[in-house]
């Protein structure tokens, strides 16, 4: 018996351009069919499953190592959409053993994603695994690999903050607003200026359920246009002071060279709104709002640099969390790998014990059959001696087998060969 291996063959956004990935991409039903075809066509392949998203197409398999030859696998993947072999092969990666397991765990935990920590990937991997189960291409080994991948992903999700950090100006602005306000549904945002950034921010706030949007623009028509598009209200630019007290969030993004809002103006607005907290976001360069506004009570003013520095911190935090996630994945891979190794070693030990036991029984029967005159006492001593000899002889080899590093460790292969464990006919 040649040792079987776990392997993974694939292309992803790390290795191949979208033009190539899109030609390989499959839905889960098609992937299950390809899996079935692989099992039929590739000799020595015992189990396989495919995972295909817009960022990756991967096949994980268990079987004879010869089957992991990427050409034969990729050939099956092309599915009537032939690609040049050379073109494809330079983009394909192959992982074996632990590396294959680790790769799958990292994919499921969203550590290999384009946006690290994005939450959809786990559901996608699950759907493809379930398709493989329905199609009957995943067996005991892949069941275990995938279930361990899911539990690793869940641990990463619950024990690290890998998905919880925003890294764009608009999303950080909303995140900060949510730190000030419990809910945005009864809050009103005032957009001063109608630049691209302001529009993006307005969209983010609307998506997060802001109660009202007001648009003030120097050219009133542009304000009206934006207001119509985003279901807001246009307000006249000249009367900012009237609308300011109504605004819980104020976003400035004009190209004005002088401050649009002074400390005194905001102070007055605050008094009129009973000092309810106000969040000002200054996206303008040069700045639209007087920085001293931040000193007012219950007022928070963030300019573009402040937002960028929060983004920077979030990126660092993501990096730290990713490092913790990698540790979790490593631990889970090791735990899976110990199980997998024993799977290969244990049958050898059991086989060895079995064989010795059969020989002992047969020889005892033969000997005791010839010595019929012996009393019970003597028979028991002979049986005990036979057992002791077998145990003493096997003690060392079994102890050593239990310590071996892997299923294809030389000791395992040697033991199987020396003791003839893979021979079909029983020896006499």
């Amino acid at each position, binding site marked *: 018996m040649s040792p079987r291996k776990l392997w993974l063959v694939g292309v992803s956004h790390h290795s191949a351009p979208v033009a190539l990935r899109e030609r390989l991409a499959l839905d889960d039903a098609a992937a299950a069919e390809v899996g079935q075809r692989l099992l039929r066509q590739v000799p020595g392949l015992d189990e396989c499953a495919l995972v295909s998203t817009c960022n990756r197409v991967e096949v994980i398999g268990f079987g004879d190592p010869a089957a992991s030859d990427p050409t034969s696998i990729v050939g099956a993947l092309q599915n009537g959409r032939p690609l040049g072999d050379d073109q494809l092969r330079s983009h394909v990666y192959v992982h074996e053993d632990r590396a294959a397991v680790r790769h799958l765990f990292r994919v499921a935990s969203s550590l290999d994603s384009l946006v690290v920590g994005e939450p959809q990937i786990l559901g996608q991997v699950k759907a493809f695994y379930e398709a493989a189960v329905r199609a009957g291409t995943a067996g005991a080994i892949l069941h275990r690999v995938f279930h361990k991948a899911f539990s690793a992903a869940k641990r990463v999700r619950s024990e690290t903050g890998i998905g919880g950090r925003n890294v764009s100006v608009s999303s950080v602005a909303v*995140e900060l607003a949510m730190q000030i306000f419990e809910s945005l549904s009864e809050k009103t945002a005032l957009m001063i200026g109608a630049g691209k950034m302001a529009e993006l921010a307005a969209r983010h706030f609307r998506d997060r359920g802001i109660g009202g949007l007001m648009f003030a623009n120097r050219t009133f028509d542009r304000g009206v246009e934006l207001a119509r598009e985003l279901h807001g209200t246009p307000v006249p630019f000249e009367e900012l002071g009237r609308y300011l007290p109504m605004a819980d969030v104020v976003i400035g993004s004009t190209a004005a060279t002088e401050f649009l809002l002074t400390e005194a103006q905001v102070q007055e607005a605050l008094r009129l709104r009973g*000092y*309810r*907290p106000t969040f000002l976001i200054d996206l303008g360069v040069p700045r639209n709002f007087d920085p001293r506004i*931040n000193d007012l009570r219950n007022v928070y003013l963030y300019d573009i640099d402040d937002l960028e520095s*929060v983004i920077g911190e979030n990126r660092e935090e993501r990096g730290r969390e990713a490092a913790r996630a990698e540790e979790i994945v490593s631990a889970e891979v090791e735990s899976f790998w110990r199980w997998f190794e024993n799977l290969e070693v244990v049958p050898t030990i059991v086989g060895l014990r079995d064989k010795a036991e059969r020989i002992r029984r047969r020889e005892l029967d033969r000997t005791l059959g010839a010595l019929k005159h012996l009393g019970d006492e003597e028979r028991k001593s002979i049986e005990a001696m036979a057992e002791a000899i077998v145990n003493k002889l096997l003690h060392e080899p079994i102890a050593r087998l239990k310590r071996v590093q892997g299923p294809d460790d030389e000791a395992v292969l040697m033991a199987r060969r020396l003791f003839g464990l893979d021979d079909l006919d029983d020896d006499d």
Partner: protein
Amino acid sequence: MDWVLLAIVLGLYLVAAGGFVAYLATARERLRTLAPQLLAAAAVIHGLEIAGRSFMLGHIAVATFEEGLSFLAFSLAILYLLLDRTNALAVLGAVITPLIAMLMAMSLVVSSGATELPPALRSAWLPVHVTLAFLGNAVFALAFAASLVYVFEDNRLKAKRPGRRRLLPSLERLDDLNHRLLSWGFPLLTLGIVSGAIWAHFAWGRFWSWEAREIWSGVTWSLYAVLLHGRSVGWRGRRAATLTIFGFAVLLVSFVSVNVFFPGRHGGSFGS
């Protein structure tokens, strides 16, 4: 025996406090469920100890300084556990449980044994008065915790260094909680003072005798009255939080100093 039991309670409070703080630092979900459970376990044992002691004494066990501290710690634990529902409030737990542990430790340190309650004071008004007063104090302690978190978060936001959003409640929520707690604490404090006055009237024939504790209570009451009124004229957010912290500091100082330096009728040696 009691001492051993209380030491165990203190130990559990300390571990619970560590759990809350560790949860904030690591965001592990297991700590989030474990910490309140530890706190609840401590509170149950603590409650039994207080009940047992009250039964032995024949009156509710709040006559001495140590008993007062212990009862305040217990009320705080119960009150927090009633409020502890959402993730965001765990941050209050991280402020409240160390405070509980501190009160408990003080109670053990000043421990001097039970005092006989003079017959004149044995009245149904005793449990009414002290329960109201202590509940009021516990509610103010929670308002204090909410305010402390508010000021911390406000500072971070102003300094452009917002922390882990997931674990901290929004400012609006903290401010709202502070307001609601004050609106509960103030009537409790008022009723506590009124019931005390009525009790005093029956015991000594006077509603008010200008002893240190009564004066401090009056000061605290006025402070919270001003604070509550202030909200209607825009004392919200940071200012409300700062004043709540100040109010509780006054309350705590009066509670401790009156008992230590001016032991009148409220300070352990009743009837002096």
